[in-house]
């Protein structure tokens, strides 16, 4: 969160609400006070930190590379002391695979959301601020992409480019996933567009670009950031679905969705093949959802 009251109207409000010690009590500061007291916020943060650490430095968790020291004689074994999460179809260590699977999963989730957020900010600002024909055109473009069924649309593109990697996956997920945030950003911009401080800035002769960047954007940002956090979880689930269907990342690559894809014919007799990647996948998605929920509750004074 940025400093909400950038200039004009802020000081008086902060003064009036100034029960909290220290510098002016901004919304972000209030939200932080609120967040600090939520156990779910800390749990979600802890899980995400762990997964991020796995993604950044997998060597911290396992000395094995992916698919290293595999022994077909011990294929599909359940968890044991030597192999904490058991072994996969080729007798490779499943734990190492899970650890290394964190990176592509998390990377795609975060990068896709950042790109989608960027599109949402630009389109949402233009659409909400100018209204009229710009708004109509952007709204129709958004509708067009919103109407595409996710799995089928992604499959069509991905099948046309066999051998695609993380880059192509990111592109496809951005292409199909930017619409929701644009709509929310547009709504937010419209709700602050005619606020007194925006009119004041306009009267003072500020340019459109300056008004949008300094006054509208910071005040419209909060809900979009919340949705973006939730969106990371959705993107990760979407990516895993495509991997699972066999049209996402392909074999030598490593990801949780791919693990589940390879395991799908054997899960009845060897449930550990389903349980471990699914557990990590679900915990990561869940943490992003909980984090987003917690931030939203903290930012929304109506719910207190």
């Amino acid at each position, binding site marked *: 969160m940025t400093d909400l009251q950038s200039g004009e109207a802020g000081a008086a409000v902060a003064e009036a609400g100034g029960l909290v010690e220290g510098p002016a009590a901004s919304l972000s500061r209030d939200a932080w006070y609120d967040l600090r007291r939520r156990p779910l916020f800390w749990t979600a943060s802890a899980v995400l930190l762990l997964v991020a650490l796995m993604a950044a430095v997998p060597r911290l968790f396992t000395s094995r590379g992916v698919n290293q020291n595999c022994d077909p004689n011990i294929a599909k074994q359940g968890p044991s002391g030597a192999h904490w999460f058991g072994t996969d179809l080729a007798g490779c260590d499943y734990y190492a695979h899970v650890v290394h699977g964190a990176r592509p999963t998390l990377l795609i989730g975060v990068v896709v959301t950042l790109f989608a957020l960027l599109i949402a900010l630009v389109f949402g600002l233009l659409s909400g601020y100018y209204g009229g024909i710009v708004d109509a055109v952007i709204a*129709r*473009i958004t*509708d*067009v*992409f919103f*109407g*595409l*069924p*996710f*799995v*089928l*649309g992604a*499959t*069509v*593109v991905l*099948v*046309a*480019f066999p051998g695609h990697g993380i880059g192509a996956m990111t592109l496809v997920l951005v292409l199909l996933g930017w619409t929701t945030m644009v709509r929310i950003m547009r709504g937010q911009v419209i709700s602050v567009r005619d606020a007194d401080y925006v009119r004041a800035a306009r009267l003072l002769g500020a340019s459109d670009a300056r008004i949008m960047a300094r006054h509208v954007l910071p005040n419209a940002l909060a809900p979009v950031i919340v949705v973006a956090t939730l969106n990371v*979880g959705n993107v990760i*689930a979407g990516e*895993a*679905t495509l991997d*699972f*269907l066999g049209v996402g990342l392909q074999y030598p690559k490593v990801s949780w969705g791919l693990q*589940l894809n390879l395991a*799908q014919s054997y*899960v*009845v007799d060897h*449930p550990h093949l*389903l349980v471990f990647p*699914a557990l990590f*996948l*679900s915990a990561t*998605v*869940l943490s992003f*959802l*909980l984090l987003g*929920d917690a931030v939203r509750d903290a930012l929304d004074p109506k719910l207190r």
Partner: protein
Amino acid sequence: MWRYALRRLLQAVPVFIGTTLLIYLLVFALPGDPIQAMAGDKPVPDTVLHTLRERYNLNDPLLEQYGKYMWGLLVHGDLGENYDGQKVSAMLGGRWAVTAKLAVTAWVFELLLGITLGVWAGLRRGKLADTLVLGGTTLLIAVPVFVVGYTAQILLGVRWPIFPSAGIDDGWPYSYLLPGMVLGSFGLSYVARLTRTSLAENLRADYVRTARAKGLSRSRVVVRHGLRNSLIPVVTYLGVDFGALMGGAIVTEGIFNLPGVGQQVFQSIQLKEGPVVVGAVTLLVLVFILVNLVVDLVYGLLDPRIRYD
């Protein structure tokens, strides 16, 4: 109202054209020759290639191809034929019924259970029931649908065979119950949460206090005053979600081996059978747009506060 309906209808036209054109371009402009794809790695004689390309308009500019296709579809109701000569409408025919039955089952499931759970939690805000529903629905949203699907199939279909584990041999509704619940689990969570929040908010409204003060029974206050107004956002979601259920059924169909449209399209994409993909997805988009349109119009009937102008 009528002006609004007309405007909304006119807005839907460019969206329909845009989405179908986008799909058309995605299917036909991306690399990969469909005629070659039929033969796999084997070489195709030039004359055969040429004849087939001519027959399926593949040599025309893409926009012209799209125009011919849409003309055939909208004027003659013709979905065209696949490269092997089969009519697309025949290939998809029986499959629509399977996907529709699945979507309806999922939809009814999320409607009934979702609203029930939402009311249960909304009436007991902050209590154990509320926490349970919130926690459970968050979990269901977070766990990807294919994980839910496999887990349900293994536990309820194989280990404790309460439901058929796959296929449609037992007919509707029995064969569709488990897949329907899996497909509807995501929407169920949203419906429950929407109902809960909306009901809890409305129960604090002035008109509910008035109704109570008049001495109406609790059930009447909750159902007629609280719930009726709380269901407006829920109805919107349920409407929009029906289109999403039809398009999102592909994963569930795969897990439970249901021969629906999703399965067919998924196979056709990999075999580069463009006409099948375009035909099915175009119809899906049409359903999606129509349902959205209807929801937008019905909205005003449910909530008199909404003005169309």
